[in-house]
């Protein structure tokens, strides 16, 4: 079994604050974290390895600091980590990002062998687009299962698995041939604590570097210049004003509130 997990390092969105005067984000002191969904993707891949043997490889495209997120994945049990980092990727939108990761993944396959299961998070908490996974799957032309909630009956002889995904109305269970691409929900599994030997092994594992020097890239598909979407402007959302504070005892407050609510009272 070989699983490849696409992971992203993101600023902890819950700690990002806005400077309303300048209309910019205050990122100082905001920690960079492993995108929460990817921890679950790695967990699932590592579980499969523990059950069937094989290996788990993780890859990210990002600046050199992203090694921190890769290291976290190693300590969660991944065997190998690749950092795809190059100036040509700067300013990539999702189409250019999925292109870069596709080429990076092809290189990983060349070095590490065929992949049976590809995993990505449902979405990244900074951009929230949920497009990168579907984009990579389309480029590989393999089956895509988004919003993965459960993976069972993974059969490496028959090369198929049962995948349960979230739908608008509930859930559906799909039989998917492998290799396949999964984007995962947080509910897929519970995160476990890595045993000490994994942590020691992780500390010794070297991060493998990929760039335009060792990955076959078409520069015409990379970076800001070749991203179809462009940010025309960024601004802070209009701030609502704090309204009236109602005062009084619970009785008085509920009376005042009920008057506000009269127009909404259901007539029957």
């Amino acid at each position, binding site marked *: 079994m070989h699983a490849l997990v696409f992971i992203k390092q993101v600023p902890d*969105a*819950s700690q*990002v*604050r806005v400077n309303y005067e300048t209309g910019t*984000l205050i990122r100082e002191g905001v920690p960079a974290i492993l995108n929460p969904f990817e921890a679950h993707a790695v967990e699932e891949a590592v579980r499969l390895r523990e059950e069937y043997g094989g290996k788990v490889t993780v890859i990210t495209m990002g600046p050199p600091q992203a090694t921190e997120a890769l290291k976290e994945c190693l300590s969660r049990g991944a065997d190998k980590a690749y950092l795809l980092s190059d100036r040509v990727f700067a300013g990539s939108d*999702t*189409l250019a990002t999925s292109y870069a990761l596709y080429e990076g993944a092809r290189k990983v396959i060349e070095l590490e062998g065929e992949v049976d299961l590809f995993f990505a998070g449902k979405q990244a*908490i*900074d951009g*929230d*687009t*949920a*497009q990168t996974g*579907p*984009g990579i*799957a*389309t*480029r590989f032309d393999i*089956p*895509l299962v*988004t919003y993965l909630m459960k993976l069972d009956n993974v059969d490496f002889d028959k090369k198929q698995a*049962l995948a349960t995904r*979230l*739908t608008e*109305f*509930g*859930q*559906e*269970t*799909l*039989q998917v*041939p492998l290799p396949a691409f999964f984007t995962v929900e947080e509910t897929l599994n519970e995160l476990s604590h890595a045993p000490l030997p994994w942590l020691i092994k992780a500390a010794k594992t070297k991060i493998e570097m990929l760039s335009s020097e060792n990955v076959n890239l078409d520069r015409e598909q990379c970076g800001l210049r070749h*991203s*179809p*979407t*462009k*940010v*025309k*402007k*960024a*601004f*802070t*959302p209009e*701030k*609502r004003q*704090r*309204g009236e*504070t109602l005062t009084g005892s619970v009785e008085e*407050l*509920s*009376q005042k*509130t*009920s*008057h*506000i*609510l*009269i127009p*909404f*009272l*259901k007539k029957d």
Partner: protein
Amino acid sequence: MAKVNELTEKEKEALSLYKNIWVFVEQTGGVAHSVSFELLTKARELADKLGCQVGAVSIGKSVSHLAKEAFRFGADMFYIIEEDVFKDYRTEPFRDALSGLVRKYKPEIFLIGATTQGRDLSGTVATELRTGLTADTTKQEIDPETGNLMMTRPTFGGSLMATIICPKDRPQMSTVRPGVFKAVPVEQPKEGEIIREKTNITEDQIVKKILKKVVSSEGNINLGFYDVIVAGGKGMGNKENFNMIKELAALLGGTWAGSRKAVELGYVPQSRQVGQTGQTVHSKLYIACGISGAIQHLVGMQTSDIIISINVDEEAPVFDVSTYCIVEDAIKFVPRLISELKEQKLTPVKNEQ
């Protein structure tokens, strides 16, 4: 240095082949998702500005009846593929069928609902077509200078808004969450044109098989439908206390919802979560009980007309977006409010005296 946004003659010519605005009419078992009509209404408005037409597109086993509904919400054309293989939604055949239609008819703009299905589909179609896709937009405008679509969306969990353009590639694709726009039928619906297409996709080419579908008991509650939403957070303390939230919602003819923490604690099903990773609502009245007002919650409800918040903490950020702030214990206040409202109902004249 050439300006990045300036187009060469050749590029202009390529773009001029693309016309009209398309909306994907999402359906399950022949029932259209409400977001499709919300998008048709928006598309109509944009098309009138651009002086072009609106095409609704549907793919399924039996979807002809949706044409009439699409025309009612402003479509001029209804593109349809009706084949057995499209009975249930599956990414790959839908991707191929839809990409084929776009290649043939070349719409300039293509809007898709940001539902689980729409998000699954749009990312693959945009990649197949090698064009730009802007996710979860909350505002769509036409740039009067260039005619480009300006798509505004929240990022960083709603802390920042970004306006995105797709100047050189077509179609300009974007997804929009349910509830962001209102569906309004047009005054005089047209008898539009129905354009039927066929694919040569066969079942044995589709490797993914659906074995089981489970409709959750909660179904897919669409919070966007309701004018009144009463939501509770962690501050409600336990699941039983949500009975008062439900009762208040029922009295006001609305529905109930919760914050993500309330979902995590099992007080509320995920299908009723409001916020960044839940649903976006623009209700006439939003009552937040025991919700702190984290940015990820606020992005899902702060465009509601009236917001009433009940929180014991005077400093709770939810008050910063509230029309009325009530610093009180919700567990004490809400039952009192309910009996007050019941009394109002019994003696409605009382208040008019």
